[in-house]
Each structure stands twice: as structure tokens, then as C-alpha cells.
């Protein structure tokens, strides 16, 4: 684990809440090596989601440097960030966030609409991603016709389809029963181990965190400790 996929230096993030200014991250620094699978834990309001948004290029810091997949994100505008996201990161959300009116295959195809791939190539890639997450048989189903675990697999396939180097997962198992959760976490493990995807996952669930290689704990906008797990 030589090269860092994520590198943050003295990152400050403040939010204006009415007249009050809340400093969510106060000079945070962090390195995540390429190929890592990090579980980010901590109580509500500790800054996990803010950190995740900064790593994923959804938000920009007030100061500090953020380099993800070799790109200085703190210097990019919103348009460049959007292009960067489509090439380098995949997102998985707690509530799947699938388009309700599109079937699984169309949902997975969405990120590919931003590429120059032909229609048939897009379709093939979407099916390949669905096969990878083990849900190709549900390709024509709409989100409402899928179970929670199946929907999250589709969401993971959507995150994977453009072949990003980094997967960002925000409470991916927060809405799932234990069995489905374990299946999804196992899938993430395979993606990390066999397909070389770096993963940053926010979770409340210690059992979920055990699937990661490493756990990071946050509180009040700072990292508490860094541990490694097999």
C-alpha cells in the first residue's frame, strides 16, 4: 500500500447555520492508501458525512488541501468536480437513491450516459456490473420491485459501472436487515480484495465496520485513532 488514494492536509470546513458558524472539520489531515477499505465511524454530528462529501468531491473545503486519485479537489470548480466524479468515484447511499421510474439496467447505465460509449456498449457494461454484484436476473425490474438488499446491489453496480478507483459508501447497510447487510458487505469486501477498489464507508454498525481493513473513529470534527484490521 504505497500510493495514497486520498490525502488531506489541514482541511477546514465550516457551515453557516443562520447567523451561527459551525466548524465541522477543524484542520483535519488524513491519508488513505490505494486499495484500502476504510470504515469511518463516530456519533451523529461528528463530521463523518462532511468528510465523505469532501472526499467524494460533492463539497469543497474552506481551506486545506484534498488530493483524491491524484487530483487536487480543493482547486476545482463545480463543473470540473462533476466531470472528475463521473470518472473517479462511485457513490452508494443508505437509501439506495435509485431512479424510481427506471429499471435496474437503466439505473446502472446512468453514469455511462456521460461517456462516449455507444448504446450497445453501455448496455453490455451495465449488464456486466449487474452480473458482478450478482443481480443480472433482475435487470428489467424497477426499484419498487426489488428488496432492500437487491436495490443496494443495483446501487453498487451503478457505482461500479464507470470503473472508478474509489467507492464512497454512506451507511450502505443502514436500511437493511442483518442477512442482506452481510451480503452487501461481503460484496464490498470482494470488490476491494479481488477488484482493487479503494472503499471509504461511513457506518454506525460495528459489525459492518469489521468487514473493512481499517476503522477510523471521528468525534467533534477530528480523527480519534487509526487502527488496522485484517
Amino acid at each position, binding site marked *: 500500500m504505497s500510493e495514497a488514494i486520498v490525502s488531506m492536509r489541514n482541511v477546514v470546513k465550516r457551515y453557516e447555520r443562520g447567523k451561527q458558524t459551525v466548524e465541522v472539520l477543524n484542520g483535519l489531515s488524513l491519508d488513505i492508501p490505494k486499495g484500502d477499505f476504510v470504515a469511518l465511524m463516530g456519533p451523529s454530528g461528528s463530521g463523518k458525512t462532511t468528510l465523505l462529501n469532501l472526499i467524494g468531491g*460533492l463539497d469543497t473545503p474552506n481551506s486545506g488541501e484534498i488530493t483524491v486519485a491524484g487530483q487536487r479537489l480543493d482547486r476545482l470548480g*463545480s463543473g470540473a468536480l*462533476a466531470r*472528475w466524479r*463521473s470518472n473517479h468515484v462511485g*457513490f452508494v447511499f443508505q437509501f439506495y*437513491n435509485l431512479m424510481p421510474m427506471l429499471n435496474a439496467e437503466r439505473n446502472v447505465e*446512468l453514469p455511462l*450516459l*456521460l461517456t462516449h460509449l455507444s448504446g450497445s456498449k453501455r448496455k453490455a457494461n451495465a449488464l456486466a456490473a449487474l452480473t458482478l454484484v450478482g443481480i443480472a436476473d433482475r435487470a428489467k425490474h424497477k426499484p419498487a420491485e426489488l428488496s432492500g438488499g437487491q436495490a443496494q446491489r443495483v446501487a453498487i453496480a451503478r457505482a461500479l459501472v464507470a470503473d472508478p478507483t474509489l467507492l464512497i459508501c454512506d451507511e450502505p447497510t443502514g436500511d437493511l436487515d442483518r442477512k442482506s447487510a452481510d451480503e452487501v458487505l461481503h460484496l464490498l469486501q470482494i470488490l476491494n480484495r479481488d477488484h482493487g477498489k479503494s472503499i471509504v464507508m461511513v457506518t454506525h454498525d460495528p459489525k459492518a465496520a469489521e468487514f473493512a481493513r481499517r476503522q477510523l473513529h471521528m468525534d467533534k470534527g477530528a480523527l480519534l485513532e487509526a487502527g488496522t484490521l485484517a
Partner: protein
Amino acid sequence: MKFFPLIWATLWRKKTRTIFTLLSIVVAFLLFGVLETIDYAFAHPSSGVTGADKLITTNKYSITLLLPYSDAAEIHAVPGVAEVTWITWFGAYYQESKNFVFALPIDTDSYFNVHKDEFIVPENQMRAFRGTRTGALVNSALLKKHGWKVGDKVPLHSTIWTQKADGSLDWTFDIVGTFDARDPTQASAQAQTVLFHYEMFDEGRSFGKGEVGWFEERVTDPSKAADIAARIDALFANSPNETKTQPANDFALSFIKQFGDIGFVLRAILGAVFFALLFLTGNTMMQSVRERTPELAVLKTLGFGDGQVLELVLAESLLLCALAAVIGLALSYATLPVIKTALQGIELSPSALLPGLGVAVALALVVGLPPALRAMRLNIVDALADKH
């Protein structure tokens, strides 16, 4: 084009709402098509006298005042006038006053020479017409309408002209043949017309002998028409019967204008319709974008740029409006035959429908822009947080 399935699926996200919105817009464009067609027809009237080479000479002070038949020879002598013919308003109906018949006493040779090649008359019937003093050529549509046949004797009631012989207003004609307009756009303008002999009319009438309603001229060079018209009017400038000569199209237009500003009325109606429609469609689009805030945020996390999201919403609005406009305009096209029967003598042109597509695009942009801007400015972090 690759975004089409996404836009299409998004459009039908709430089926009922989209269908109702679509139907409202369809209705608006149906109305647009119908009213625009009528407006177009009124703005491009046809007097049944066509061509830039035709002039019409009427009494300067009143269309009801007659002109001496002898003017024809003087008009004919004006350089540039190829032919002149004279016609009189006969004010006829068949049996009941609602069965209006546009019966015209014509001078056969000059009439068919002014209107060269404009009518299709079978040659044997033309011969029969020339040979029959009481003969009449009937437009084939009118013949069919009243169930007449060639060979029938048909009485027409004139509301103006009494007969010298018995003071009667009823004139009887022998149908010797039919005619059709060669130019199909003239078909409805000619659909009530009956042509009969001026000689029979002039000899038969009890008053007004030697006086005619108006003259129609064909000029050799249409570009000199205005000049020729001025020369004709100059001929009679100080006579008791001053004339007013104008291109046939202007004559028709000024007559139609007398009905009032129909265009204004139609546009006022359409204004009200589209104003209400703006609210309806705009509200639907806004509501729909507001409901999909999380979905739009997800698209942005996937890497869709702000501009692309704006375009997606605008495209959806465009798709909705264009789809509805095409259906609405197609429906109004289908109603053309009905309007045509209601507004007799008016030729309708489908080309009035084309601006409807432009209106659809404008409508789509106006109603689509506010929600599209909202979608564009949507902050991903806030929008995703809403969901939790």
C-alpha cells in the same frame, strides 16, 4: 438522444399528473390551431377572383350603386387592359333564404376571357350554354348539394331584380352544364356559384337596364396594375358614377376587414388560454422538480454537471409541450373540414398551424426555465441531507 429514455421515464414519473397536464396543453393547441386557421383565412381572403393580374372596378361611393354598362368599352381601351367583363349582384336564393346562391349574370366571351383557364367546363356543355338563352352553368358542388341534374329547370329567387314580364322575383334557368375551379384552393369560394347570361338578365329585368354591378379586368402586366387602376378611375373622375379600381385581392381583403378586427378577438382568446396554461404547466413542472430534488442530487453525484441537469429539465418541458402541441395541432387539422362547412366560402390553409410549433417551444422554455434553474442551482449536500 441517449438521454431520451431518462427524460421520457422522468416525464411519466407521475402518470396522472402528466396526462392531465398534457391534455390541458393539447386542448390549448387544438384551440390555437383552429383559431389561427380562421385568422389566417380571414387575413388571406379569396373573392373567387384570383391572380395578381385581376382588377375590380366598383362604384366609388357605394358597392350598391350601379355603373353604366357602356363604361366597359372605355375601360377596354385603356392600354394594358387585356380584357374586361361586367357582373351584377343578383342576390339569389333557392327555395329558402338560407339556401344562398351566388348567381352571376355574365357576358360569356369576356367573362371566360378574363378568367382564362380558371374553370373546367366540358366542351359540349359550354356549347350548350352558349346556345341556350336561359342556360346556366352550375358549380358541381352546388349541383350535388341541391340534387340538381343537367337538364333540370331550376327557379332561383332574386331578392333584388323583378322581371319585366310579370314583376316576379323568380327567375327560371335551364341547367346545361357544370363547372369546377381549376385551382383547388378556389373550390370553396366557388361552391355556391351559378353562371347565367347577362343578355337574358338585362332584357328580362324591369329596371336598371344597361347598368351593371362591377367590372373585372385582366391586365397584361401585373406590375403595372396600380397604374392601370388609376387610369381607369381617371376616365370617370368627373362623371356621376365615379369608380374605384383595385387589385382583386385588395378588394377581398377590404371586404373581409369590414367584419371587424377578427384577428384581435382571436388573439385575445388565445392570450387568455395561454396565460392560464403558463400557470398550469409551470406549476406542474415546478412541483415535479421539487419532488425529485433527491433524484436530481443523485444525478449530480454521479457526475452530471449543473448545465446538464438544467438541460435535462428543459428537455423534459420541451418534450411535454412539443408532444402536446403536435397532438393538439393534429386534432385541429382533423377539424378543418368541420370549420370549412361552418364558414362557407373560406379556404383554410394548414400552413397556419406551423407557428404553433414555435409557440410550443416558447411555452416550454418559459415554463421550464424556473424549475430548470432551480435544479441547476441545487446543492448536492443539502439536497441529499433532505432525504435523511
